[in-house]
């Protein structure tokens, strides 16, 4: 990447170090304001076992409704959270750019968008050596 930035140009603006830092890059005006509220970063988003399990399940089968995510968490992982709680977890993942929703027909489906995870490897690349 010629335009290297530790947060990546794609996510500049909402993966900010500080809430008070001014937004730079492609997000301007109302769009930047929209992202400035309730924004979280990928590290906080991943710091929760339920949210990691949601990503596991979406990685295994992408494009699930809230109902399917809830039933999978309950039956495969024994998690009996309320739908509202799971909905809030999905919101945190979406704010961090790890999940996107798409309306198909009259239902809303959730998709795993792993691109922000590449930032971790870019920031702390694995050393290219064989372990002894």
């Amino acid at each position: 990447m010629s335009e290297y930035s530790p947060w990546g140009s794609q996510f500049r603006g909402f993966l900010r170090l500080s809430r008070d830092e001014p937004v730079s890059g492609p997000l301007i005006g109302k769009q930047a304001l929209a992202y400035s509220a309730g924004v979280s970063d990928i590290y906080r988003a991943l710091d929760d076992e339920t949210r990691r399990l949601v990503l596991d399940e979406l990685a295994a089968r992408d494009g699930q409704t809230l109902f399917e995510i809830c039933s999978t968490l309950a039956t495969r992982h024994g998690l009996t959270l309320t739908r509202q709680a799971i909905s809030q977890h999905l919101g945190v993942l979406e704010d961090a750019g790890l999940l996107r929703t798409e309306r198909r027909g009259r239902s809303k489906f959730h998709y795993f968008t792993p691109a922000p995870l590449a930032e971790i490897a870019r920031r702390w690349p694995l050393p290219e050596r064989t372990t002894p």
Partner: protein
Amino acid sequence: MRIELTSLFVDDQREALAFYTDVLGFTKRHDVPLGEDAWLTVTSPEAPDGPELLLEPAGHPAVKPYRDALVEDGIPLAQFAVDDVQAEYERLTGLGVVFTQPPTDIGNAWIAVFDDTCGNLIQILAMKPGTDEGN
């Protein structure tokens, strides 16, 4: 006390009757005109004397926001038992039915969820052989 009838709101009673009989395979039981609407029920050919399903007009203003919110989150409003979820999924998909959730193993059963084209999501369920349904 017995459950002999349960109901689902449908956008259009005639279209609903076509879907629930021609596509799903239920049998018309009652079709009694009531003003502009009808007392319209279907039963399963596998249990002709079993519970009736009333296909009820969705005209009340509370119905639309209620059902829209459930459909958005993928939540089914009724559940029907089948012998084989995968076989029904393939049969119904072949007839153009859209599933919001493909056959899914939930441990002691298989489930899937489809759109009934009348404003509802419906879950089909098959208990796995040897599973105690009472639990």
